[in-house]
């Protein structure tokens, strides 16, 4: 593990804004949205206050996982341009503060979820936090190029947790929603890692482009897109969702596949020539928002 000189003493307490930044609020928006969609897509209606609390707990749990991730990765964050200004590598906060904040927030979110909704949702929330921190951050990220393939599961839990909060169990549809995000993660992150490859290489993170090169990564993006498309269309094909979702899924996945093919055909080695990768990365975010939004619209309109 690379070590960097961290401030030995930090006499000033951290600013609340830095504590907020520790929770990665921008990442949280997608987590909250997919969790909310999972909850709305579930059969029956959850009390609005309890539903709000469940989404809040998902957000707090994601924030806790983000804080613990930053606590563990302060050394490599300092080596990457994209992350060097985070509170820990910039020396605006002690590692102990980040650790206490992350652990406290994680426990609080799980306990509140259990008390407000049910223990199934609290269990899956705890699993998602532990998975992100121990399996992805501590175990996989620095060891294997498959880090985000397996680690992607951590970000796939929110719709499942939202569903469990509303119903108290987990059935085939939330498992499919989990699979969609799980299979979406590799194309999404590998597209990003292609054009920020030098950052990851400098930090010694074995992302696929760093370990296996751009050509293999581009092929893998296309290969992972295929099961993702199948998983995204499955809820409609298996009659778990209506035509609004089905039509949206067909269009969205056709565009995704087209962009993934464009990436596979690109052979640029410099970020300046990686327009298809940048386009796929941006589109993949819109894709997930619109796909889950379509599922909710489907439920609300056709219910």
């Amino acid at each position, binding site marked *: 593990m690379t070590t960097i000189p961290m401030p030995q003493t930090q*006499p*000033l*307490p*951290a*600013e*609340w804004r830095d504590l907020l930044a520790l929770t990665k609020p921008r990442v949280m928006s997608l987590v909250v949205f997919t969790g909310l969609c999972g909850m709305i897509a579930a059969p029956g209606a959850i*009390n*609005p*206050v*309890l539903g709000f*609390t469940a989404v*809040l707990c998902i957000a707090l749990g994601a924030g806790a996982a983000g804080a613990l991730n930053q606590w563990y990765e302060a050394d490599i964050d300092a080596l990457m341009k994209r992350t060097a200004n985070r509170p820990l590598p910039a020396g605006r906060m002690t590692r102990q503060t980040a650790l206490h904040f992350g652990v406290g927030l994680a426990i609080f979110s799980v306990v509140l979820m259990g*008390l*407000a909704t049910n223990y199934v949702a609290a269990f899956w929330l705890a699993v998602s936090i532990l998975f992100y921190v121990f399996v992805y951050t501590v175990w996989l990220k620095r060891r294997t190029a498959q880090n985000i393939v397996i680690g992607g599961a951590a970000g796939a839990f929110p719709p499942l947790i939202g569903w469990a909060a509303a119903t108290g169990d987990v059935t085939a549809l939330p498992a499919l929603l989990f699979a969609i995000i799980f299979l979406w993660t590799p194309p999404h992150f590998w597209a990003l890692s292609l054009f920020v490859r030098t950052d990851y290489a400098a930090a010694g993170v074995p992302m696929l482009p760093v370990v296996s090169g751009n050509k293999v990564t581009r092929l893998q993006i296309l290969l992972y897109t295929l099961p993702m498309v199948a998983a995204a269309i499955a809820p409609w094909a298996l009659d778990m969702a209506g035509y609004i979702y089905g039509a949206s899924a067909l269009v969205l996945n056709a565009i995704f596949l087209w962009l993934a093919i464009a990436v596979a055909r690109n052979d640029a080695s410099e970020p300046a020539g990686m327009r298809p990768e940048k386009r796929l990365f941006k589109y993949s975010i819109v894709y997930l928002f619109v796909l889950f939004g379509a599922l909710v619209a489907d439920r609300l309109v056709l219910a």
Partner: protein
Amino acid sequence: MTPEQEIELRRRQKSRSRVTALLLGLFVVLMFGISMAKMLINQ
């Protein structure tokens, strides 16, 4: 600690105290809401 650091320390403490008070207030409101919702469901 220099006078400038002392001023900065007080400013940060004050700002954190305000945020903590706000969050505690919201937590109380949330717990009240959860209790009411649970009572309604159990009726």
